[in-house]
């Protein structure tokens, strides 16, 4: 049964890629004049927000619009969270969270990271969750998509005399939310509600258990948040146990929906990449590389979980063989492994406890993240991260074939590579320095090797997950200091990538198209795939000592 589901998912991905990619491309790249209905809404939005739709922004105008918008949302969200105690829709009278936690929540939501260092049920009110976080999720996802399209517009600009082809961020944002995210989210939310996902602003339900205890069952506007959590590749749910919670992910059907919807935009982006670069084959090449990586990753996790005899805690002895600890019985090992693999690569939503996975599976999850969050990755930004590796591979490819290094018919120069390298240095250094120095907080001479190795794994996962905006976690480090450090790493990780890619795009926008079929590098063949995978694996080398000190020691002990 699960096997069929898995095949179904992987078989559906190309179709999802095709439809989502074409649709996003249509919405963001086409003039809407041809479609009276879209034009109507477009015009209305333009009138309300007073945007001149024909005014193209320069690269830096676009980038500053992105930053202004994100900053505004940041401030608003911060206030919403801090003023929680006086805002309405707070039936449980939940108190405000402290400043550093609020900062962390804000940063993690506007950057689509959703590193949730709080407990959703007990720390946030309905108002904060819905008016604050749900909407921030929309902005975060739309920003990612807009950034990808704007960067591609710059890179594929045909005429170097007019380099201001980046479009208009405000218009892109509105189109993205109104035409792409909202309709899909409404449909998805309705389907989820039909399957039993909660959508309520009532007080928490008091239940009397068989043992006679009183249990509070939290409610919330779950379905709406769930929709954008998945479609927007955010991963921040209402409840702290995320998609493992029955109100978020009640049955196998919703689980399947979760998997498909969280991949929808990232896979669509790969096809849109092909459309933008003028050759859909290029998009499919990237899609297949990502697919190869995620399938191999899933296989590692699945076989490790399935064949594990790692059951220290006999309470959780599973009905079947394998490691059932931390997994929901309604999903089983297979679907939990697949969900986790997707989660670590894409959104950060989880339907099982990653901390309970076997060490090798944890390493596989870690690799998915430290690779740069590029296996599908976040909405738009995943593909931007992939382009870092594409450009480096293009250079290696050209070097080996004795050709002019060029990307999409444009010469690839020194500056672009320098910027890319700076980005990789930033994210890799943050993860390494963060993980190694944070071990000071946990120094305990009495702890055994296993405990130390576990701490290293958790810290590495936390730093990788925040810096690369994944959001899943092994252990929630929610002390004040960590909240602050992670706020920084989330923001640096998110905006360094976006800024670097915009700068590169601007350089490309001013370049002339090369005109010689003999010297152009074709990035749509098997050899390019091999070189790209080599480049990606090569970037992992730097984390090897940490992986050895973490999961590999855990594995051996």
């Amino acid at each position, binding site marked *: 049964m699960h096997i069929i589901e898995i095949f179904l998912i992987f078989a559906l991905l190309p179709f999802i890629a095709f439809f989502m990619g074409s649709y996003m491309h249509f919405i963001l790249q086409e003039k809407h004049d041809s479609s009276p209905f879209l034009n109507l809404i477009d015009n209305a939005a333009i009138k309300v927000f007073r945007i001149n739709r024909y005014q193209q922004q320069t690269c830096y105008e676009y980038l500053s619009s992105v930053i202004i918008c994100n900053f505004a949302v940041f401030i608003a969200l911060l206030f919403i969270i801090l003023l929680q105690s006086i805002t309405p829709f707070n039936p449980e009278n939940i108190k405000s969270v402290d400043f550093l936690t609020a900062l962390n929540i804000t940063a993690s939501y506007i950057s689509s990271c959703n590193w949730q260092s709080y407990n959703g049920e007990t720390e946030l009110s309905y108002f904060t969750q819905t008016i604050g976080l749900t909407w921030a999720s929309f902005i975060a996802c739309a920003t990612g998509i807009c950034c990808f399209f704007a960067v591609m517009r710059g890179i594929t600009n045909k005429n170097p005399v007019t380099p201001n082809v980046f479009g208009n961020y405000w218009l892109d944002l509105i189109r993205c939310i109104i035409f792409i995210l909202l309709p899909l989210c409404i449909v998805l939310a309705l389907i989820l509600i039909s399957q039993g996902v909660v959508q309520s602003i009532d007080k928490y339900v008091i239940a009397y258990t068989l043992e006679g205890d009183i249990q509070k069952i939290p409610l919330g506007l779950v379905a709406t948040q769930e929709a954008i959590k998945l479609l927007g590749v955010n991963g921040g749910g209402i409840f702290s146990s995320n998609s493992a919670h029955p109100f978020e992910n009640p049955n196998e059907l919703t689980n399947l929906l979760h998997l498909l919807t969280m991949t929808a935009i990232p896979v669509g982006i790969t096809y849109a990449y092909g459309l933008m670069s003028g050759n859909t084959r290029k998009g499919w090449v990237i899609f297949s590389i990502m697919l190869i990586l995620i399938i191999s990753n899933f296989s590692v996790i699945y076989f490790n979980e399935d064949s594990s005899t790692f059951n220290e805690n006999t309470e959780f002895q599973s009905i079947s063989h394998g490691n059932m600890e931390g997994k929901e019985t309604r999903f089983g090992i297979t679907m939990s492994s697949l969900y986790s693999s997707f989660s670590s690569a894409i959104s950060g939503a989880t339907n099982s406890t990653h901390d309970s996975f076997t060490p090798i599976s944890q390493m596989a999850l870690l690799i998915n993240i430290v690779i740069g969050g590029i296996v599908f990755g976040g909405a738009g930004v995943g593909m931007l991260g992939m382009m870092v590796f594409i450009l480096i591979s293009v250079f290696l490819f050209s*070097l080996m*074939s004795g050709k*002019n290094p060029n990307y999409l018919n444009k010469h690839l120069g020194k500056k672009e590579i320098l910027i890319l390298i700076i980005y*990789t240095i930033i994210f890799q250094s943050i993860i390494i320095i963060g993980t190694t120095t944070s071990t*000071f907080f946990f120094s305990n001479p009495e702890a055994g*090797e296993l405990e130390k190795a576990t701490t290293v794994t958790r810290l590495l996962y936390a730093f990788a997950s925040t810096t690369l905006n994944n959001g899943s976690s092994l252990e929630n480090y929610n002390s004040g200091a960590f909240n602050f450090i992670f706020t920084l790493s989330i923001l640096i990780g998110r905006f360094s990538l976006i800024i670097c890619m915009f700068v590169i795009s601007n350089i490309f926008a001013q370049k002339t198209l090369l005109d*010689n079929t003999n010297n152009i590098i074709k990035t749509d063949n098997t050899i390019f795939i091999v070189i790209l995978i*080599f480049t990606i694996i090569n970037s992992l080398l730097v984390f090897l000592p940490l992986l050895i*000190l973490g999961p590999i020691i855990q594995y*051996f002990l």
Partner: protein
Amino acid sequence: MRGNATENSLNLIINTFVKLNPFKVPSNPIMVIIWIVAIITLFVPIFDLLFNNYTSTDPVWFVSSISIFIWLSLFFSNFAQNLAEKKNKLYSDKLHNLKNFIICNKLLDNGEIEKTTNDKLEVGDKIVVYQGEIIPLDGKVIKGVASVDESAITGESAAVIRDNSKGKCNVKGGTKVLSNQITISITHRYSKWNDDIADISTKGYKHKTETEQILNIILIGMTFVFIVLTIFLFPISVYFGLKISLITLLALLVCITPTTISALSSAISISGIQKLLKNNIVVLNSEAIEKIGYIDTVIFDKTGTITKGDRMATDIYPIGNTKIMELAEYLVIASINDDTLEGVSILGYIDKKYGISHKQFQKKQLEKIPYSEETRLSGNIYHKNKYIKASFDVIKTIFKQNNWVIPNELFNIVKDIGNQGATPIILAIDNEIKGVVKLQDVIKPGIKERIPTLESLGVKPIIITGDNYYTTKNIAEEVGIQSFICESTPEKKVEFIKDLQEKGKIVAMIADGKNDSPALQVADLSISMDQGSAEVKELSNIVDLDNNPTKIIEVIEIGKQLLITRGSLTIFSLMNDIAKYFIIIPAIFADVVPDIGKLDFMNLHSPYTAILSAVVFNALIIPLFIPIALKIKPYTPEDVAKKLTKILLFYGIGGLLLPFMGIKLIDIIVKFLILP
């Protein structure tokens, strides 16, 4: 000779040691890091003394051999560079001799003449240079008058007169005596141009090419993160209560930085220059070498590049009753005082074909009608008759003014010659037109055959010239180049190149004349002929000593191959690092987790020997790859995919497996050495 070779290699090694001087920083940034690491290793024993506890667990043989082998890898890197430079130097010396190996007539004190070669000449020696000979070295005319073709040095095609008068007495090496003979006293041992070559090849390699810079950026980026990692392994090892000694960390850093490619990087570039020198191509700017590989359009200047530069008489056409022998004689009379190359070529042609030498006419009987811009004609007055040569429109104007008859036959012949892309020169005696000389551009040999090869490399050839449509078309057709631009001025040439560049072409310009210098400056790559003027040569990136424009093919092939060599070695180096990494990391952490030994599938003797073997391998792989770096294979325009697969299999997979085998072997040797 044998002794010389030994001396050379000895010098090379001594030189390399001099370069190892701790105060001399390597040129490659990665090697700078290795150099710093090597210096730190020297201080490890001092650290030992200061912090007695810390590194003292390492055996002395381990610390010292790590240090030695890190220094050795620096040594090998310098050696590679020196070797490449040395080869360059040797070759340029050879070039010197070759270029100057001219047989000349030394005038001895007793008035006798002795045949000798220019390399045996000394300053102050007197030599006699006859008509048609090349003046071997710079000197002063002490006897005689001669017209000298200095186009090889100045690019000016008009011959100049040299005699022993002041201001006209200096002659340059490499120029050609066109008529008469002169006696010269040598003033300089080498001509200036050859000194330049010597300069360039000894200076070797200065600028880094763009690809090399990009590669360096990528490698430095990687290395930077590795340095961060090495430094921050320290806190985490403290956390684990692990003792990773300083020397081990340094060994780790050396092993994971891409040393192989960095060590050989400059050697690759230098060997590219050398390879070009071997083809008699001098690279004035090393940045140009790799740019060569990118070129997709080549613009040939016609005059002096595709053609020999001077038009030559190739046929004569008598008109009216004139017999062909009569016409030949008339032409000789008209051309005797004409010092231009065209005049000389007419004389030469007639002498060769009709056997009428100009020596039978006494110059005294002739009165010269000199060429001037106003009359645009030249010739001689002989027995009171005016023998004049001029172009068709000049003759037409004169004859129409005086109402003289122009035979209809002439119009047909002139049109015919024009259609063939040649220039007609009309000969008239007084008011009667006697015949026409066809002056034609002569295409340099061997160009036509090579144009298809050029096109197969993906390069589009274009001819550009100031000549008219027919001339250009004719030359283009004869050479087999489809595109040509005619009647262009220097400004138009610049515009044309800029236009191409805007369309995304990467343009190389091959030219020799001064009028092309703006175009050469605009082009992405400029190649000039050795025969061109000195200014033009200074402007260009590359100078071809053989004056053969199809050399661009070799230039492009070498450029491409240079890129491929660099790419292959990069992949090899990175793959090597992966392998070394997997050997050295388990060795380092072997203390903390004994079970990690399971990762050590190589079954090496001990962590110490494993780390040492990796460092030794790291050093020894450099000299092993010097031949590959220096020997740039000929470029074969086969399928890119096939070629890349080969590279990935050989350098990629090979680069991954070789270290495992090599390190295992070294480990066995080390084991035998350290065990009593």
